């Protein structure tokens, strides 16, 4: 039971790290980014490339994660600056089609650059074994994931609530025109949020990589879970994603144990139930007029 609870948390926290970027981008830009899974996949592949060159060293792994985030940040900046920015004033359907097109393009590029076969990344030195928790031994890397989720959540909360940048981002969510009238460069805010969201996807992909096969198609698997997390938690809500991810982790692990192959039904029933009860998600807000 303890192990299953820990498994649920580890899965949930990994999902949170990936999904929080999606919810951040939606919260500010109001863009549903289908390509978020593609950013996750690029993060894993970039880490693979770095580790392949450096060998299984601590510097290679942790440095590779930083490189993955930087690469994603640069890609996201290019995408936002030269393409997505042109679509903010267009209808939502065009934005959806655009991000979906990115999914297809990235899918093919990944295959061209890294080939169609699966790759694998070892756990970083010191994280491959298990740690004695008194009650039971538990994989060290998963413990690290469980701890890193709240650290990232609190860090983001502090940035959003306690810094000037955070205040500007929150203001951009509420009233873009007023913010612009006050002399804030809203375009730069949007660009920064999109870059930060993509870097979080890259971080999530890189952190998930030692536990997964790095392969084409890994984007499609993760994006559905990310959408479930942000819909259950509330689109645009940081803590909504946090708790949504934990709920999905628990539903997945305990659903599999109790209902076997019917686990997926449990996850979707949960999502439908939340949407019927609170269509705006657990911690989401009812949509108000935005300017």
């Amino acid at each position, binding site marked *: 039971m303890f192990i299953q609870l820990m498994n649920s948390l580890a899965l949930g926290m990994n999902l949170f790290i990936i999904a929080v970027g999606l919810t951040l981008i939606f919260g500010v830009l109001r863009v549903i980014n289908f390509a978020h899974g593609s950013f996750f996949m690029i993060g894993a592949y970039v880490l693979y490339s770095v580790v392949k060159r450096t060998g299984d060293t601590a510097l290679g792994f942790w440095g590779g994660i930083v490189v993955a985030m930087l690469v994603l940040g640069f890609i996201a900046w290019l995408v936002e600056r030269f393409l997505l920015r042109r679509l903010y004033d267009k209808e939502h359907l065009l934005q959806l089609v655009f991000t979906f097109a990115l999914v297809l393009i990235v899918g*093919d590029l990944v295959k061209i650059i890294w080939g169609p076969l699966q790759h694998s990344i070892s756990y970083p030195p010191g994280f491959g074994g298990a740690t004695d928790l008194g009650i039971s031994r538990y994989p060290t890397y998963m413990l690290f994931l469980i701890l890193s989720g709240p650290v990232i959540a609190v860090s983001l909360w502090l940035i959003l609530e306690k810094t000037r940048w955070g205040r500007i981002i929150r203001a951009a969510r509420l009233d873009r025109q007023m913010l612009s009238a006050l002399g804030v460069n809203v375009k730069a805010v949007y660009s920064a949020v999109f870059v930060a969201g993509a870097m979080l996807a890259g971080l999530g992909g890189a952190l998930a990589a030692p536990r997964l*096969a790095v392969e084409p198609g890994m984007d499609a698997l993760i994006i559905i879970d990310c959408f479930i997390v942000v819909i259950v938690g509330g689109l645009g809500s940081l803590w909504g994603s946090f708790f949504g991810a934990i709920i999905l982790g628990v539903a*997945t692990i305990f659903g599999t144990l109790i209902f076997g192959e019917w686990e997926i039904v449990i996850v979707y029933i949960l999502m439908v139930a939340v949407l019927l009860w609170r269509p705006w998600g657990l911690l989401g807000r009812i949509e108000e007029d935005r300017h």
Partner: protein
Amino acid sequence: MFGIYSKARRVFALEIIALVMGLGLFSAPSMSADTIKIGVLLPTSGGGASYGIPAENGIKLAINEINQAGGVNGKMLEYFIRDTKLKPAVASAAARELITKEGVHVLVGAVSSGVTLAMSEVAKQEKIILFAPISKSIALTESKFHKYMFQSSANTNIEGRVMAGVMKKVEAGKICATGYDYAYSHDFFASLESNLEEGMAIVDTFYVKLGTKDYNALISQLMGSDCDTVAGLIWGGGFVSMVKQANPFGLFDQKKFVWGAEVGSHEMSNSLKGDYPEGMWANSYDLWYSPLSDAHQAFLDDLAELEGQKETNMYPVTTYNAVKFLAKAIEISGGTDSDALVTALEGMAMETPLGPMTIDPETHRTETGEFWGPMKKIEGSDVLRMSPAEYVY
């Protein structure tokens, strides 16, 4: 009012025409009397690309060889490939498109039994041969059998029976079975169970959904079971993820492991390297480091040249053999009429890189073997190899 209606109707009509033309319904089949056209359906994007793209190499190699030798009855072979995306609906639509638009004479594919079963319906309706060199579900040539369906994979009857033999070798005792929840795993474990010798039995079965990426619940279930040996069928990237997640728990030190679904291939062990569970019994269609004969070595050399690597992939041999069978049938029948090809294929015997293969005239299946053996560390390499590797069926 009428004008608006008329304009709307004209736009609507144009949209319909564009849609129909887009679907290829009005485009005449680009039939060429000079070539024999093979329609190939494989997953070339997403997670299935690791199967589909190497499998395409086998098609290329066979067609190159045949064409360089002058073709079949003086006609060159050409192939048209479509991506199934591992989805049954996509595959059956693509199969229809290949038949109606490209005018292909035979179909080869696909990966994943659910996908091939969907294509089989199209083949049956269109009366065109579907040759399945990879999909293993016995349903393809049993409950869903029709005269245009041929299967040359190591089907679930064969693979299950061979695994039962491996279970005897490792003195399996109580067995727990795990695989994805679809036709392949269900048919396989039915075959395994019926072939197990006395003293061995499947005591627990744990199915996981296809596409699962978190295996922690399964790992706990396997660790909690009192079985002595695990019979596994999780394949592809799922196998990599499962192994990576199970290693820190020490799962592979607790029980014996016998794994089907070709996870003993070099591409799989090369992907996992030192993380591959040493001692696991696994299988593979082909092994670049284990030639069976001079003919097999010659095939491996040609494939190495095509792929640009000495350590060749496992799947090309399956599709290579499929094309060779079809080419021989076309040669014997003197044309591409489906019924004549069926007659030619029934009972056909052929020498392949992996030895002789014969198509059973009743079941339309071949007895296809695979390499089986324990995976071991090799000195000087971080990639495990099957040692000793035995070719069995």
